[in-house]
């Protein structure tokens, strides 16, 4: 034998089944499909055994090379992942189950997701959370659409400090809906306060901001929330969850909808996915949330239990009138996020954020001293910051990459005029030595 197909039935059993069906052959079962509709081609390689597959996949992964030291973020972050997460999420009862439609035999998933929702609320300072969306970018797009629904308006203002990939997703989502998107240009790598008044109007459904923003600047959006609310618009804030161990919660700043990408909470980089998106809001908007929501209830004996709730928002009931088309979400990744947060706990999570902040501050100081390099951010930063180099960042980054360091994300491609700029990320995994080495190498690349 070589390829496996995991089909268990033996020829004898197949014979018995065909007899029960009253069919002469398996092929006969496909007789509803006229010959003219049959596949014109099915040109795939022959299969292989599990062992050969493993060797093949190892070789493929090795083609990525030995890996580099990550000073890059841009939405995905290289954080520690407690070993227990893999072990727990590797429990078959979690990962080989599906959506908990039948609550009595799905209390494991349901309770975990209820706990997840609670964790997201507590992190963000919001009142309600759903049970996950796809990723940070699509969560932001869903938030924009939710704001449009809630307000009945058709314009959104989006800060240019929002992750450009996420902005692109929002644009893709809104493109066919006759919605106007106004891009608020950044001011000194921060949300442009002087300009905001001229952007906000009575047609505006939402002001969309990010904290820390793509340049790494951390902001207090309380004023923006107030201004938005005055105009009847919502404040939508996208946040980097690890920062919430140190930075004021968007809820406390007055945000109406909060989204973010959960990758940094216990999900591996895995070349971009799977991760999860989170979305949280206030109680009054709960019926406008997209996606699944878990609610607490009781059984016939009065015991606590959990169910999918408010399903009348969802596609399987409401079809085209649903709040979103989402069906499968990213449950297992959300579970990883929950276990991450529970493993670190209240103190550990704050400590994690602090470590990120301290290391990034150290890096900012060290890199800022490299000849010709300046720090662009005037505002405080968390674990990312923007450097201006004395030359185009692209070539510098390419050279540092050859030296085994992903030094940062050059901004030129997304921010015309910032071709010399670079966003550097420093997580708790980066050692002082690695930071010092980056500074030394940067100096070398720039000046020798």
């Amino acid at each position, binding site marked *: 034998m070589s390829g496996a197909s995991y089909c268990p039935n033996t020829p004898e059993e197949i014979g018995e089944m065909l007899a029960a069906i009253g069919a002469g052959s398996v092929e006969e079962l496909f007789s509803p499909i006229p010959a003219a509709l049959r596949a014109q081609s099915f040109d795939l390689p022959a299969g292989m055994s599990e062992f050969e597959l493993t060797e093949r996949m190892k070789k*493929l992964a090795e083609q990525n090379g030995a890996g580099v030291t990550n000073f890059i973020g841009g939405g995905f972050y290289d954080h520690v992942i407690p070993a227990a997460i893999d072990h727990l999420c590797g429990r078959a009862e979690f990962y080989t189950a599906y959506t908990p439609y039948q609550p009595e035999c799905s*209390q494991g998933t349901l309770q975990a997701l209820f706990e997840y929702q609670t964790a997201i609320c507590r992190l963000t300072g919001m009142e309600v959370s759903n049970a996950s969306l796809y990723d940070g970018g699509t969560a932001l797009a869903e938030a924009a659409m939710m704001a449009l629904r809630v307000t009945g308006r058709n314009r959104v203002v989006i800060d240019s400090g929002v992750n450009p990939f996420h902005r692109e997703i929002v644009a893709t989502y809104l493109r066919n809906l006759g919605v106007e998107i106004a891009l608020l240009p950044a001011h000194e790598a921060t949300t442009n306060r002087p300009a905001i008044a001229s952007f906000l109007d009575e047609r505006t459904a939402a002001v969309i901001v990010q904290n820390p923003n793509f340049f790494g600047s951390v902001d207090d959006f309380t004023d923006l929330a107030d201004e938005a609310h005055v105009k009847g618009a919502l404040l939508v804030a996208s946040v980097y969850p690890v920062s919430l161990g140190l930075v004021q919660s968007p809820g406390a700043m007055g945000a109406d909808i909060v989204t973010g990408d959960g990758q940094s909470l216990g999900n591996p980089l895995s070349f971009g996915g*799977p991760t999860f998106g989170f979305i949280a809001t206030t109680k009054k908007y709960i019926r406008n949330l997209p996606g699944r929501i878990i609610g607490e209830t009781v059984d016939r004996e009065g015991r606590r239990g959990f169910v999918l709730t408010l399903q009348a928002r969802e596609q399987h009931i409401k079809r085209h009138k649903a709040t979103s088309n989402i069906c499968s979400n990213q449950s297992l990744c959300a579970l990883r996020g929950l276990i991450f947060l529970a493993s670190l706990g209240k103190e550990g999570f704050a400590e994690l954020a602090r470590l990120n902040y301290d290391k990034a501050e150290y890096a900012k100081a060290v890199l800022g001293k490299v000849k010709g390099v300046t720090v662009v951010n005037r505002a405080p930063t968390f674990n990312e910051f923007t450097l201006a180099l004395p030359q185009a960042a692209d070539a510098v980054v390419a050279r540092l990459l050859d030296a085994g360091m992903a030094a940062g*994300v050059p901004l030129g491609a997304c921010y015309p005029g910032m071709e010399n700029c670079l966003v550097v990320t420093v997580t708790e995994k980066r050692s002082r030595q690695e930071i010092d080495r980056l500074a030394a190498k940067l100096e070398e690349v720039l000046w020798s």
Partner: protein
Amino acid sequence: MELIYEKSRPGRQGVTLPASDVPRAADLPGNILRSEKAGLPEVSELDVVRHFTNLSRRNFSVDTNFYPLGSCTMKYNAKVLENAAGMFAPFHPMTALLPGGEAHSQGSLAMLHGLAGYLTEITGMAEVTCQPLAGAHGEMTGIMLIAAYHRAKGNRKKYVVVPDSSHGTNPASAAMVGYEIITVPTAPYGDMDIELFKQAMTDEVAAVMMTCPNTLGLFNPHIREIADIAHSHDALMYYDGANLNAIMGKVRPGDVGFDVIHLNLHKTFGTPHGGGGPGSGPVGVKEALVPFLPTPRIVRKDDGRFAVETGNPASIGRTASFFGNFGVMVKAFAYITMLGREGLIQVSEQAVLNANYMMSRLKEYYDLPYDTACMHECVFSASRQLKHGVHAIDVAKYLIDRGYHPPTVYFPLIVKEAIMIEPTETESKETMDAFIQVMIEAAQVAEKDPEALHAAPLTMPVSRLDETKAAREQNVCFGRW
């Protein structure tokens, strides 16, 4: 079970972090500094492990129970696939987008390109993007592609046509892209009513979305005719690939007139369902739609190396933050590589055999609204049981007590008291025989002792739950934060 928050004890610590090797920095300004630490649980690692291990034990799953949840293709998830995905865990997606970064991502890019290539051949399309993050996301992406196509051609389109048997995501996805929905009823023979369909079709129809085999498990032999009618209005044919498990190597949507498809890797290609996700919903298109595919696109250059292409002016843009649910794709890629051509054909053959066997054995006991050879799943109705006051849900709960995850119930919506059974190809005859036996018993109990079914389940940690209370009280977050 207590919530993890209820197990919290002030000052208790779980996982520890490395000590800092840098000086403590000056604090953030007061207005930016978090005023109160987030109310996360304070528990030990053992607390965490015991809590979630025990929570997991409160789930049914494929690895513990037969799980014939119709439309979801709950096949066995080979363990080797999990290992394969783990090999790519450490790679940052941004690396590939850095100047010079493709060289450090050749393995990942090769996988993405290879998977897209496999799926292209399996479906008979011109190109596949793996960016969409689930089936519904694929649908939305596909409809966006269709919108872009019409926009580019200057077509003025307003509607998307779906049969009433369609999955809820179909109309919902089309609505997300701004289309209005026209729903075509199902004819007594189980397929979309062709006459009503013709009446619905005008030049304002952008697309027709079909599942084939449809959600009744039936293959529509008139699919080409339908496609021809659609195309005559320059409406594109959208294929919901959720049910591809039935037809691999037998039919290719691309060959029979479909222009856009999505696939559910978590259904057909053996990736686990994760308690609700992550899935992956690659989208394939015919040549005419290739220019509109999302960016970034993975291309193979003349020198054989793989590259990321971003600047594509006609593209609908980005639909996901990076390259999609990469880890899920690795599993699907490995699955296809392992099974190969013959293995995939066998999958579909055995899936169809199992479903027909299930149908033949049970149709004596349950009404079969569309009594014709099915493909990979079959849809019964509990209407016969309803005469005794027993609903599909009561049968479902009885099955739980007997150790089976229930089939999908109340879907498709067009079947009253629907019970939709999809055994999948990885289940054996004796597993099905045992299940069939219990289904027969359920039918008998329905007649003799309906109360017993109403009382079920009795063996789970909770009995039936009060969904009304949940919806009314909206307790979706524990305690005060």
